[in-house]
């Protein structure tokens, strides 16, 4: 915008009354000149005034068009509205207080909704390079992203898009120490789970692939930092201690870092044991690990450098098609997709998006109610 234009508009805004007065003067001068001319041609003043009004057209309309030409109409009118609103508010304090409270509530509700939305939709797992992590979802079994363990093993061994592909499952467990039994949530995870996440232990070690090599051979457990503090009194000699988990003796080999909370935003697991111990953790479902029809595990992987999610998805679909041909009864018709981790696949994410949309609509309505109040101020008493 050239300087002249800027100066002109500034004057139109900040010296609005002077500009309006000048416009009045200018148009009145124009009308008077026209009347004078008509009178010189022999008309009476009355006739000349009437004729001038007819030929000139409405002065008000001309003024409106001039205001448009100033290019500041929006600002001027907003300013007028603001002043009107302030006058109205001062005239009725009760209404003003109501409006302020409604707006405050509406704004507050919006803030809460958006921060919730932020957590649900945009948060990342607090591990190394979280953008490389994807959760693999099988939509054949909604709403959970479930695979059978044998299928997982084939995806893990046949793909060339993941630097690691891990399987896990969470399960309620009991922890027995000195006679008392406590309920807690635990993860049963494949041996490469912590490697895939790039997570190191705060004390001792995390689970490693060798723990998962032979069924039942390595009854070792990793506990969360919170579990170590609350349930074990931050025992400095925790590594090597024995504990009974779901009725089976384990050795505690490590404590996770304080910020690590597993791989789901909704759970706070306290114990991790290797997949090789699953028959001890879930005796009732004994043998599911070898059953291609038992879709019990969730699958998460770290993409190789340079691989994008869509590329991983198509590679996985290729393997799923192979498996469908090899085991049509159990593995046929898998519908695979990948999504950012932490939300139990895409299923909860989309449900959460819908909930968030609903909440935003509701808070929006609260704000609308406030605005409706502004539009209909009470008539002055």
């Amino acid at each position, binding site marked *: 915008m050239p300087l002249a*234009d800027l100066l*002109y508009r500034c004057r139109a805004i900040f010296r609005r009354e002077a500009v309006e007065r000048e*416009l009045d003067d*200018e148009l009145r*001068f*124009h009308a*008077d000149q026209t009347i004078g001319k008509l009178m010189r041609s022999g008309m009476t003043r009355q006739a000349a005034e009437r004729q001038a009004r007819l030929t000139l057209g409405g*002065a008000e309309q*001309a003024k409106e068009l001039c205001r448009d*030409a100033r290019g500041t109409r929006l600002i001027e009118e907003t300013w007028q509205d603001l002043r009107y609103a302030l006058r109205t508010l001062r005239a009725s304090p009760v209404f003003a207080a109501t409006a302020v409270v409604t707006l405050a509530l509406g704004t507050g509700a919006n803030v809460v909704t958006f921060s919730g939305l932020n957590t649900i939709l945009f948060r990342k797992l607090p591990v190394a390079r979280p953008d490389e992590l994807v959760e693999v979802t099988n939509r054949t079994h909604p709403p959970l992203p479930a695979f059978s363990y044998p299928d997982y093993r084939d995806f893990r061994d046949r793909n060339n898009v993941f630097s690691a592909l891990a399987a896990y499952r969470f399960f309620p467990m009991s922890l027995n120490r000195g006679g008392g039994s406590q309920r807690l949530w635990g993860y049963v995870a494949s041996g490469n789970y912590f490697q895939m996440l790039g997570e190191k232990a705060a004390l001792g070690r995390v689970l490693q692939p060798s723990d998962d090599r032979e069924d039942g051979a390595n009854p070792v457990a990793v506990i969360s930092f919170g579990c170590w503090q609350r349930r074990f009194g931050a025992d400095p000699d925790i590594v090597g201690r024995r504990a009974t988990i779901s009725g089976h003796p384990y050795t505690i080999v490590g404590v996770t870092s304080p910020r690590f909370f597993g791989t789901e935003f909704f759970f706070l697991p306290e114990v991790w044991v290797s997949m090789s111990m699953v028959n001890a953790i879930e005796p009732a479902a004994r043998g599911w690990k070898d059953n291609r029809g038992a879709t019990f595990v969730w699958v998460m992987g770290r993409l190789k450098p340079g691989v994008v999610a869509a590329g991983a998805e198509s590679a996985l679909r290729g393997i799923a098609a192979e498996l469908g041909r090899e085991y049509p009864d159990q593995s046929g018709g898998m519908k695979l997709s990948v999504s950012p981790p932490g939300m139990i696949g895409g299923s909860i994410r989309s449900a959460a998006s819908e909930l968030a949309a609903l909440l935003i609509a509701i808070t929006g309505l609260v704000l609308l109610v406030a605005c409706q109040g502004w539009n209909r101020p009470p008539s002055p008493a």
Partner: protein
Amino acid sequence: MGERLELPQGTLDLLILKTLALEPLHGWAVSERLEQISRDAFQVGQGSLYPALHRLERRGWIKARWGVSDNNRKAKYYDLTRAGRKQLGAEAAAWRKLSAAVGYVIDLA
């Protein structure tokens, strides 16, 4: 009074600039001058004249100042600026080119 013409979009600006190129005038005088030199073909109402004047002023092509009219009244006079003179040259050239081309096409058909 002969037949009145509707001014095509944009030509009023050009005519105002041309009128003011001779001497500073107030709005009413601009409309009188336009009627005279067009031999009453154009009649410019205040509803188009003043918005155009204000638009030209905003663009910095004309400059307004308050003065005293012949009949001793306060009146707002408009004068062409240096930028306005340049603009007038450019618009006049464009207009000549356009009208020549249109005329050529019409005569040809």
